[in-house]
């Protein structure tokens, strides 16, 4: 008898997925992009438990379920839900898992989704646990890269902005680590990439360069330009923020000598870090990237529910 490798039961952390898992999800996401309206979740009920509001993420998940003909129950923040008032997370999960086939949860406490996955009899998808993990964001980023570049292998990715607190960037580094990437880390002094991610890159043999300025060199060598928000509240020194706030902004003319295959990504919402004049450039890909989230989530949901995507 052939022993098949065990697929993960829940998706809490991008590291729950190995290279094969990631590629399987991306290939299935491509199938959903070609044909998003399917009946794979007919007769199934999924819960979206948003202990912390995040409308964008919730709508993406709920649309993914609706397009698969599944049904959704849940709440969009704890202020309006009597279920969670004073009740432990464990009790909420135990009760809801009686009703549904899969739970998608977002919670302000770090590690909440890991704990839920240990006590829940049904699969858990982590839609963000505090500043810790948000793995479907990473998968949709990877899908957008895969789709636009035709591969994930040997690419140069320039990440710009808040590299210190930016969860999306940290997970992207981990997710891409299987594919021999080269990184350019572009960040102001106060928000530069933490030592532990540089150590991670060193251990995995991943090449990287650090830039203290948003230089044209970092843009022109890139296959992917991954922009993130530089938030005022992240700075201890507001003078420093005033200095950098207009420097880490992408304008259309900065792309004029970039590679033909370059795509600009952003986890959204953006504030000012990508000028509106970039939006019409065919290299701007952030809105399609957000749309890809839906297909990627369709793929993750089916994968955890052991539904074969044909």
């Amino acid at each position: 008898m052939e022993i098949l490798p065990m697929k993960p039961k829940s998706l809490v952390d991008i590291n729950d997925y190995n290279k094969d898992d990631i590629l399987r999800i991306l290939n299935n996401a491509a199938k959903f992009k070609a044909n998003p309206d399917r009946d794979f979740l007919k007769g199934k009920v999924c819960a979206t438990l948003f202990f912390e509001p995040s409308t964008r993420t919730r709508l993406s998940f709920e649309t993914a379920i609706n397009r698969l003909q599944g049904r959704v129950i849940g709440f969009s923040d704890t202020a309006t839900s009597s279920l969670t008032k004073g009740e432990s997370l464990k009790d909420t999960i135990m009760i809801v898992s009686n009703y549904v086939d899969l739970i998608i949860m977002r919670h302000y406490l770090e590690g909440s989704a890991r704990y839920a996955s240990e006590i829940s009899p049904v699969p858990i998808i982590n839609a963000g646990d505090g500043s810790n993990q948000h793995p479907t964001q990473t998968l949709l980023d990877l899908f957008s890269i895969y789709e636009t570049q035709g591969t994930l292998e040997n690419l140069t990715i320039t990440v710009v902005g808040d590299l210190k607190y930016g969860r999306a960037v940290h997970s992207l580094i981990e997710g891409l680590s299987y594919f021999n990437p080269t990184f350019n880390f572009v960040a102001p002094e106060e928000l530069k990439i933490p030592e532990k991610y540089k150590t991670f890159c060193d251990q995995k043999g991943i090449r990287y360069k650090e830039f203290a300025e948003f230089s044209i060199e970092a843009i022109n060598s890139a296959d992917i330009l991954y922009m993130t928000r530089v938030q005022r509240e992240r700075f201890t020194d507001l003078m420093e923020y005033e200095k950098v706030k207009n420097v880490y902004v992408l304008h259309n003319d900065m792309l004029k000598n970039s590679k033909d295959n370059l795509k600009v990504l952003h986890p959204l919402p953006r504030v000012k870090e990508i000028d509106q004049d970039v939006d019409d450039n065919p290299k701007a890909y952030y809105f399609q990237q957000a749309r890809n989230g839906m297909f990627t989530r369709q793929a993750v949901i089916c994968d955890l529910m052991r539904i074969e995507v044909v």
Partner: protein
Amino acid sequence: MRKALQVAALENGTAIDHIPPQALFKVVSLLQLQQLNNRITIGNNLRSSKIGTKGIIKVADKFFEEDEINRIALVAPNVTLNIIKNYEVIEKKKVILPDEIIGIVKCNNPKCITNNEPMKTRFHIIDKEKVELQCHYCEIKIKKEEIIL
């Protein structure tokens, strides 16, 4: 003289020797000695040829389980364990840091689920030499000197 002997001699039990003085009371709490009714002798700031000053704990009629005793390695990795039977040391042991610590160390992250839910903490030992831990839940890393019991 008789009294001194009574403290020193252990007929059966465990003597934990060479505890750094600043770690002694942490060892007491790690082993939850306050919950035992056994005869317990604790000495601290005793002279030691090996480490200058040391602490020592003797617990009569108690032989700890491996995973119980290995917790000590979190705060005092170089202690010596003497297993005593019939006034004789029948075994000398070193403590070994386990791969995982459950329910003893507190997570330093106030936004960690373990600090907000009635549940046990769980840490992976990611560096046995430096004694560095990582929370299984919120994933933060804790250095030896930051460990809170």
